[in-house]
């Protein structure tokens, strides 16, 4: 089993998280808690570390079903992209799968792309 697939998925009240493939995580619902990092920062870091250990070339983070997130949650995605950007060795591409129908995703990932384009890809599913 890959290390990525073995990462423990946190249980949170408002967001459903699934590891749907050895390189894919899917999040749906909303992230509104004041400190989402308490639940999710460690999880994202574990996925990042596992992806490097598995020598993945791409990680897909499907956030198309994430209908609302607060600013603190956006920072978690920023952090993930920043860890990857700062990685000195072999690294993967972080591909966010997004929805055009969800307002926050259009602007947030466009901005994130402008800051970390060398490690990021954005795909629209709807």
């Amino acid at each position, binding site marked *: 089993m890959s290390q990525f697939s073995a990462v423990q998925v946190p249980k949170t009240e*408002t967001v459903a998280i699934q590891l749907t493939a050895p390189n894919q995580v899917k999040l749906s619902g909303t992230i*509104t*808690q*004041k400190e989402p990092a308490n639940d999710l920062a460690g999880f994202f870091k574990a996925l990042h570390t596992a992806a490097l250990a598995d020598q993945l070339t791409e990680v897909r983070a499907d956030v198309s079903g994430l*209908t*609302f997130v*607060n*600013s603190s949650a*956006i*920072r978690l995605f*920023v952090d993930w992209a*920043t860890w990857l950007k700062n990685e000195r060795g072999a690294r993967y591409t972080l591909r966010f799968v997004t929805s055009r129908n*969800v*307002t*926050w995703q*259009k*602007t*947030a990932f466009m*901005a*994130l792309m*402008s*800051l970390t384009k060398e490690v990021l890809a954005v795909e629209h599913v709807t």
Partner: protein
Amino acid sequence: MSSFERKPLPSSSSRLAVPTSSGGGSRTNDGGALSGRVLVRVICTAGSGALDYTHAFITAYATDHLRGALAQRLSVGAYELFSNALNFGSVSSDIVLELIESDTWVGVRVSNDAISARIAMLSEHLSKLETNAEQTYLEEFRRSVTGGIPRPMLGLARVTHEAGLTLDLQVQDRRVSVTAQCRR
């Protein structure tokens, strides 16, 4: 059953959360204070932890009463304005959140007491957003990456750039009202 009925009511710290009407005429405007029918008014205590429930309630109500994209935009506005009031407002007075509509405009207004330094900071930030919302959003986003000081104000930048809402600030003594609004 509507999502208004399905969603939980705001937490017990919120004293009122009912569809209501203030009557009076509607005034359309271009960036000034929005007046019109108050669809929902929520009153809660600062620091009460009512953010999640109140946001869910307002989002459900807006989704039921307005078209989807508009409801999403107002949801962002309600969350960020209410979050700011809870985080930075005076704990000695109530926070009031209202969903307001006129024939041509719809918006969310959050009122709270604040210290003068906070009001000055808010005013300065809104001026920056008014000048160039996109640039301010990107600056705040970049500041999130670097973790710089002062504290990122990405929330208000999201309201203007991401949700495309116009922000209006009204101050009377220590009472601050921020309205995020757009055309229907």
